[in-house]
């Protein structure tokens, strides 16, 4: 039932290879040799094709087994089967059960980094990838730095919370080229005020303002994985697209990777909303020289010219404190880290009361001076 998966092994010692962001090379844990991505890619291209073929056969066999098991009343329900895949670790032989979208993982028994064949082939193959630039230690350091300066963080949180899990994940993203064209109508006013004797006179000049135009966006990212929290993935933007490379599975060893499970059509509303909001902001910025500006009507048309499938590097860190889980995400390229922290209610009240008292004393001192 279990099938084979691909590991990138060192041509010199057959030890497992990991992609190292700092050097941009695949390095062997055992003999320390480093190899260019292209070199390993060439070496393994044939092997990978054979694995894909084997995987297809294995999938067919599994379907037959499932059908037989169903007849015998021993099967898992359809939803469970649809969401899982199983493989054999080529290093230790253990049977691995993975999520159906998992494309790269590591064996929980021997730690061998593995690539699941077939996940990134044909139409499912990503076009682009940004390789990891920052390693696990950088992520741990960034998390510690993240705690600094947080006045409302419970004192015990830093000491008592432990990193439960830290994973480098290649997250599937859609990069969308799109355009918004349309028009917005504004009502604008200019107000001047002066005094005439005991009266304050206000004169308001009214204007009708029209703006029409179009604005293009390049590679607006939207994460294509339901496993990843959208807020975390949005907040670690932007990525430096100058690091975008043509996809190669040789970048994956040592990290987790998922294939997309949110398709292009499902991703479009989020992109459209962001693009239209930006178009509104840009048009509003051209209406200058008025005291007030109010948009009274708008007509915006969104269109997209293409979407590229890309994998982006993200460090996901999970910590636990007082039976609560806290999830953090760090951009594996830029180091930007986001996540929600617990709030010490005592500190919150102390800051509120303290600030109010200091502010009150300063004001009273000012009055009495």
């Amino acid at each position: 039932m279990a099938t084979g998966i691909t590991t990138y092994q060192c041509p010199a010692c057959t030890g497992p290879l990991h992609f190292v962001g700092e050097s941009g090379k695949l390095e062997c844990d055992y003999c320390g040799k480093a190899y260019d991505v292209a070199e390993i890619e060439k070496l393994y291209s044939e092997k990978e094709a054979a694995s894909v073929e084997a995987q297809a056969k294995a999938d067919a066999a599994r379907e037959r087994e499932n059908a037989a098991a169903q007849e015998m009343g021993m099967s898992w329900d359809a939803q469970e089967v649809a969401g899982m895949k199983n493989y054999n670790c080529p290093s230790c032989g253990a049977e691995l059960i993975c999520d159906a979208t998992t494309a790269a993982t590591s064996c929980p028994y021997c730690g061998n980094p593995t690539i699941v064949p077939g996940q990134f082939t044909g139409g499912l193959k990503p076009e682009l990838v940004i390789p990891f630039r920052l390693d696990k230690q950088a992520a741990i350091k960034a998390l510690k730095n993240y705690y600094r300066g947080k006045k409302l963080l419970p004192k015990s949180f830093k000491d008592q919370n432990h990193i439960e899990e830290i994973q480098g994940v290649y997250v599937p993203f859609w990069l969308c080229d799109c355009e918004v064209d349309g028009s917005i109508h504004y009502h604008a006013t200019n107000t001047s005020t002066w005094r005439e004797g005991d009266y304050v006179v206000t004169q308001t000049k009214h204007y009708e303002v029209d703006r029409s135009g179009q604005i293009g966006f390049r590679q607006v990212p939207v994460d294509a994985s339901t496993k990843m929290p959208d807020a975390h993935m949005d907040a670690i933007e932007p990525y430096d697209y100058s690091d975008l490379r043509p996809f190669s599975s040789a970048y994956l060893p040592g990290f987790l990777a998922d294939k997309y499970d949110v398709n292009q059509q499902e991703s479009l509303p989020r992109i459209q909303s962001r693009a239209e909001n930006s178009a509104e902001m840009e048009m509003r910025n051209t209406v200058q020289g008025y005291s007030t500006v109010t948009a009274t009507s708008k007509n915006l048309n969104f269109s997209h010219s293409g979407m590229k499938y890309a994998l982006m590097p993200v460090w996901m860190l999970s910590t636990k404190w007082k039976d609560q889980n806290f999830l953090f995400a760090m951009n594996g390229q830029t180091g930007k880290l986001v996540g929600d922290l617990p709030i010490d209610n005592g500190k919150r009240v102390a800051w509120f009361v303290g600030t109010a008292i200091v502010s009150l004393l300063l004001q009273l001192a000012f009055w009495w001076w």
Partner: protein
Amino acid sequence: MKKKLFGFCAALCMLMMLVFPVYAAAEDAPFNESEIPFRTMVTDNADLLTDAEEKELAAKAWDLTRTYNCAVYIVTLPSLEGMEAWEVTEYLWTEYHMGYGEDQSGVMLMLSMEYRDYDIAAHGYGNVAFTDYGKEVMAERFLPELGDDNWYAGLSIYLDCCGEFLELAAEGTPFDVGSDSDPLFEAGISLVASLVIAFIVTVRLEAQMKTAKMQKAAQAYIDQQGLVLSVQRDHYTHTTRSERYDPPKKSDGGTTVNDDGFSHSSGKF
């Protein structure tokens, strides 16, 4: 014409000199009656007061005058005879040598009935005791009564204000901007402001704790061309005008004194 207009003032002056006893002892220096040539503290040419009321007000004004060495006058007139209210008070002050001492210290409330004008004029030490803001507040207090033709009540309020402001000036803190603020009200305002500041600070600190937020826009991904406008039209349509009654308040305090040493606050009642 002016002599005719104010002839009664001189006569009344002589009368008052006989009526009022001579008092001594002021706050800082002994009161010296010879320092005040014009001692008719109330001159009711417009005939607004009864004799008893006039005497009572005059006694009160004289008492203030001798207590603070600062002459306190009330003058009512049928008409300004074409002059401005401030011109009339300055003319009277100069012509009749009003005020106490060398610097002619004093304050005068003049009412003219023809167009219901009033002017509060101060001179010498009166400019110290009766600041611009003090004169405004004084007017705010007595104008409602004068507006209802309650002459005695309005003029009594004027004298009460004179007593209050002269006392404050004698204590070294003349009534000015901020003198009449309610400490409780100010403390309440400060408390509310402090709570608002504390709320803003706390909300900002809380925001630091939650950084995972959805992006609302895509500014970072706008292409090099940016926004290309095909229509950019700004069209003026009309103008509207509104007026709000807001009498000016002096925020910096003090007294505005003209070249002749007078300060004024005029208006209608």
